[in-house]
């Protein structure tokens, strides 16, 4: 276990170095930040002076070294626009995004699992067929159309939920601004998280269905039937646990997709999270903020996948042994 974690941490460090290098490398490709910072009236000499002060005229590796040195101490540069440490700006928006992602993942698990199982055990049932049709439509419709439809149906026509913002939030331990504990906050959460969940659900319904169908063909399921176990026990204990192994792995990879989708979802629903902030930062050429965002997201990705591997090890007994051996 300890060895497994150590290996994981080393891998994570390596991945983070690569991510930081890439995100730093794109900084000077996004445009001239000085142009965005100063007005038209500033002369070329003054601009050069600012460039020198910011260290923008130094060589790439020197700049990267400076950046990396800061990064190790938790300093990812200062946002040009907010004039605050970029990391602080992002971490302030982190709760909003995490809550959104968490709710949509919860929705995906709670809806996709029973749907996938139903489609697998009763493939000819009318509901299963309907599910398959809906999921293939869901796979092919882009998320912004889903989002716009949601706004149109639930906010404009039915007037059930607000279409933008986070609503009322409460502070927890003075660190975390949460919308999960107020009625207004939950109402605001509804549409964005539903949109995000709809984007991911079809893949999971189909994956769970396909895996489950394969598992149900296996000898150990037949043996379970021959022992006279109840159908419920066979489906939900014997089959589902085996079905979930590949689903967990794919789930970890999809965490990356989820982040990409939060950018779109947050922009459409004006959700004050990291994704929304990122879009703003890009349009303002706030390069430190952009690279800080990429690094934070990379970190989230690494952490989620480590967790996924740990969960996988808990579900699959053969993996535990392997981690001892290596």
């Amino acid at each position, binding site marked *: 276990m300890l060895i497994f974690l150590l290996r994981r941490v080393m891998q994570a460090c390596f991945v983070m170095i690569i991510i930081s290098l890439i995100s730093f490398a794109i900084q000077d490709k996004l445009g001239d930040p000085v142009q965005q910072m100063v007005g038209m009236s500033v002369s070329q000499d003054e601009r050069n002076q600012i460039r020198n002060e910011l260290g923008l005229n130094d060589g790439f590796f020197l700049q990267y070294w400076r950046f990396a040195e800061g990064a190790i101490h938790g300093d990812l540069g200062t946002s040009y626009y907010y004039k605050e440490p970029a990391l602080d700006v992002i971490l302030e928006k982190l709760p909003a995004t995490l809550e959104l992602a968490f709710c949509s993942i919860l929705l995906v698990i709670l809806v996709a699992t029973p749907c996938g199982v139903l489609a697998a055990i009763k493939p000819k049932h009318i509901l299963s067929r309907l599910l398959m049709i809906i999921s293939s439509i869901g796979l092919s419709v882009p998320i912004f159309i889903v989002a716009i439809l949601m706004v149109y149906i639930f906010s404009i026509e039915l007037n059930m939920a607000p279409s933008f913002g986070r609503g009322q939030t409460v502070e927890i331990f003075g660190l975390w601004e949460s919308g999960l504990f107020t009625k207004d906050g939950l109402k605001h959460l509804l549409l964005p998280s539903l949109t995000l969940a709809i984007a991911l659900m079809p893949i999971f319904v189909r994956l769970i269905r396909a895996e489950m169908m394969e598992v149900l*063909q*296996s*000898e*150990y399921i*037949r*043996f*379970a*039937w*021959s*022992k*006279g*176990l*109840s*159908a419920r*026990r066979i489906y939900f*204990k*014997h089959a589902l*646990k*085996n079905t979930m*192994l590949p689903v967990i792995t794919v789930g970890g990879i999809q965490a990356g997709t989820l982040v990409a989708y939060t950018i779109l979802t947050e922009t459409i629903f004006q959700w004050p999270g990291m994704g929304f902030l990122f879009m703003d930062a890009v349009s303002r050429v706030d390069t430190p903020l952009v690279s800080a965002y990429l690094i934070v997201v990379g970190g989230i990705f690494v952490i989620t996948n480590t967790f996924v591997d740990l969960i996988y090890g808990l*579900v*699959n*007994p*053969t993996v535990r*042994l392997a981690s001892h051996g290596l």
Partner: protein
Amino acid sequence: MNLLSVSHLHVNFHMKEQELAALIDVSFTLNRGERIAIVGESGAGKSVLGFSIVNLIGKPGYIKSGSIKLENKEITKMNLRQLQEVRGKRIAMIFQDPMMTLNPVLTIGDQLVETIRSHTKISYKDARNIAIEKLHHVQIASPEKRFDQYPHELSGGMRQRVIIASVLLLNPDIIIADEPTTALDVTIQAEILQLLLAICRDNGVALVLISHDLGVVSKVAERTLVMYAGHVVEEGPTLEIINDPQHPYTQGLLNALPQMTLPGQRLNQIRGSMPSLAERPSGCAFHPRCPYATQKCRQEQPRFIYSGVSSVACFLVEDMLNEFADKDKEAS
């Protein structure tokens, strides 16, 4: 009353374009504590027969007609709930490959305890005690430790022992063993077979042993059914069938056994191969491979008759019997 009686069982596979018959008019009986064997080549319908006894033929197979009676209860007419009561508790099954039979993500203990607890209302602790006792019974060392392990931590032979233990949990009347030793090492085969035999003998459990290995069968079964292309072609006491096979197919099977007396001799084999379900020949299904086939064999299906040694479905035997009967008449 017979413990199990299968009569005129027809099992079909419902395919997209056609109905394929996997079992045709299969009948046999099994008494309490009796051990019978079902032998034949791959594809003869042995396993299908084994699975249909507990109505567990995988789709697209289904029981078309005929009856399977456990004492006086008709298995073919049971609903799922009634079947679940029979499966495991009255009739238990052992599968071919122990590496595939146990669920890889559940502990041995989990898989044993759930079997007991889904049939009888007892506490987890009591069920655990029974499970450990049975593991001990099948000669597994330190059963308490094995109880908490996962299948992948056990060897193949050990897993088959666990499966035998799991089959014993509820003291069933019948064990159906579908090639229980085929996937195992030769040295372990003998051990497992001995164990199975001892258990059936000691507890008075009836055994249906499905095998293609006549050597195995001769050691275990009192009676043998020989199957070919979905038919039972010969049935009788194992010793008689092995010493004096009547049906040309049974003779072929026995000839194909390697003999250790003559070194350097080529192994005998039956010419050709078993027809697939879709290409079943007319008349006696064995006629294309039979050295004695006549015109009649190609056109008509032989009846099942008692030859004096065993019951056989073959015109050759039937004609011979008729000849003897005629001679008897003449003599008197």
